[in-house]
């Protein structure tokens, strides 16, 4: 036993933990963020520590026009400011400003985002993506991603923090503070707008399970507190869609919070119906499904122990969804997932429904590599790596090609693949 354990430990290696770094104004300790961009605006976020007035300044990046909006932090200091009336497909800069007696007393530091394309726009789109960001690890891929100025949006496929062990509201907030207090997080969140979902570690490992009972609502509320995510009519609903013209539509799934094992539901029937209908009716050339846990099949026992924790463990829903996409011949579907501590590009299934569908696993951005002694490979999977990285996804509606580049923390391109969707 010892023999094996030591062999595995030594083989997988261990990364050292990083320490909090960087300096931000104490009035805005976690910087700024933007998310869920539409063609006319975005949700802008900050955490304010103070009792003065706060204003939000938004301007076109080329300085052509600007507006100042008074905002009101909630009782905990969170600001979720919905900005509307902007021009589609344009880059904007924004900053939160504290004023006291009409005088400026503090600034949050700037952020930037791009509004989504106008409804009929057909133009190339470039987004970044990661998952698995353990706040105790070095986060070099986030830093590299934040240096980019060409990412129109950034996808977070879940495990954006590791809140495991938190039991109370304050406990979860403390974990979020620990995570977003890391400079790479703050830099990335300020660099472009986010499109995020959650996975298990926003609550507890492999949620839903016995350990997550009583924690899910608390964790979901904290997710909405700390992320620039637009709350739906039903506050508990995370799934939503965001369209970038006729180029791409992002379908953000919640594959954790609505599971019902007794009914064989990996996602609620309402969510599944919404997804299948949305895929069928979307006018966008690409349909990007932000999925958190992979839908791909992983044959063999080494990945089999967690089968019940992913789509494969809910075979009826999985087959129905993939068959719907195949039968309706819906073009441009790209699955984006995370969770596995490895990056991957390949086909969803070896044969049958999903055999021509493409899935990309993004991340890990701050984690130990998946410890399996073998990773998926040919013929189903074209690329897999355990190196910490982030993914750049280029969507070209003119050719229907999706290009996937995997970029390590040192800036090296470690994988570059294109698929005709």
């Amino acid at each position, binding site marked *: 036993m010892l*023999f094996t354990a030591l*062999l595995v*430990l*030594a*083989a997988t*290696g261990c990364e050292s933990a990083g320490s909090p770094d960087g300096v931000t104004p104490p009035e805005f300790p976690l910087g700024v963020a933007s998310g869920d961009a539409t063609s006319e605006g975005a949700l802008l976020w900050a955490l304010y520590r103070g009792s003065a007035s706060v204003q939000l300044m938004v301007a076109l990046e080329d300085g052509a026009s600007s507006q100042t909006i008074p905002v009101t932090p909630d009782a905990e200091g969170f600001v979720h400011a919905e900005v509307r009336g902007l021009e589609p497909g344009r880059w904007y800069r924004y900053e939160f400003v504290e004023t006291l007696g009409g005088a400026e007393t503090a600034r949050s530091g700037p952020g930037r985002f791009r509004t989504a394309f106008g409804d009929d726009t057909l133009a190339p789109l470039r987004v970044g993506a990661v998952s698995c960001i353990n706040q105790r690890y070095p986060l070099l891929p986030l830093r590299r991603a934040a240096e980019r100025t060409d990412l129109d949006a950034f996808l977070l496929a879940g495990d954006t923090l590791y809140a495991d062990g938190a039991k109370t509201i304050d406990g979860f907030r403390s974990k979020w503070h620990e995570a977003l207090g890391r400079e790479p997080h703050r830099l990335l969140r300020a660099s472009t707008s986010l499109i995020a979902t959650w996975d298990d570690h926003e609550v507890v490992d492999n949620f839903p399970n016995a350990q997550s009972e009583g924690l899910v609502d608390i964790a979901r509320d904290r997710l909405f507190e700390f992320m620039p995510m637009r709350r739906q009519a039903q506050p508990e609903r995370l799934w939503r869609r965001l369209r970038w013209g006729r180029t791409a539509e992002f379908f953000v799934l919640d594959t954790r919070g609505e599971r019902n094992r007794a009914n064989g539901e990996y996602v609620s029937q309402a969510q599944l119906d919404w997804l299948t209908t949305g895929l069928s009716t979307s006018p966008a050339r690409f349909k990007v499904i932000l999925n958190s846990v992979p839908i791909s099949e992983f044959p063999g026992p080494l990945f089999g122990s967690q089968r019940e924790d992913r789509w494969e463990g809910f075979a009826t829903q999985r087959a129905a969804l993939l068959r719907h996409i195949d039968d309706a011949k819906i073009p441009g579907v790209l699955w984006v997932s995370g969770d596995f501590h490895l990056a991957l590009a390949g086909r969803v299934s070896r044969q049958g429904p999903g055999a021509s569908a493409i899935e990309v696993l993004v991340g890990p951005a701050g984690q130990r590599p998946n410890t399996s002694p073998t*990773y998926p490979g040919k013929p189903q999977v074209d690329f897999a*790596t*355990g190196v910490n990285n982030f993914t750049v996804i280029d969507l070209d509606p003119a050719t229907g090609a999706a290009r996937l580049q995997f970029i390590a923390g040192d800036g090296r391109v470690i994988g570059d693949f294109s698929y005709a969707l």
Partner: protein
Amino acid sequence: MRSVVLVLLLMAPLALAQGVSEAVDAGAPPVPAGTVALYASAATAAALATAALASFAGALLPTAAFEARGRPDPLALAGGFAIAALLNAAVLHLAVPLLTAMGQSGDVAASTKAARANAWRASRWALLGAAVGLVVLTAGAVAERDQFGSGQWPMLAGAGTLVASMGTFDVLEAVYAWQGFVAARREGNR
């Protein structure tokens, strides 16, 4: 629970060695129980230390393969297991018989050579089991390299057989080295 397992792990070689002493040592003054316990503890410690050393050495190859490719290589893993098993067997077969020397006393002759020979007669069968495990593991690794998912069961079965066989090797080496030593000790006293 873990501490119970640990105690059992440490006590088992002692009980076995004591039993061997009583069963074999018919012609010489009995070996003091304290000496038997000391030997059993030393042999157990040697086995654990050797396993740790072998595991570390064996992990170097798969780690290097991972660093080079950014992903694990099943064949490198099989190679790592082979290195670890060979190192474990060689070091333990060299070291454990030497530990029997602590049972020597002034008026009784004994032989670590006889201890090693007797240990080998028993432990080689465990090595054969390890070799079979390694072959199955390697075959699985080759299949897995060719097609993901096709060699995982053989890899698991092979690795399990190899690890179990090496554990058995450790126990047989310690017990039968002591048996050889005690038997030689009796011969030397005639």
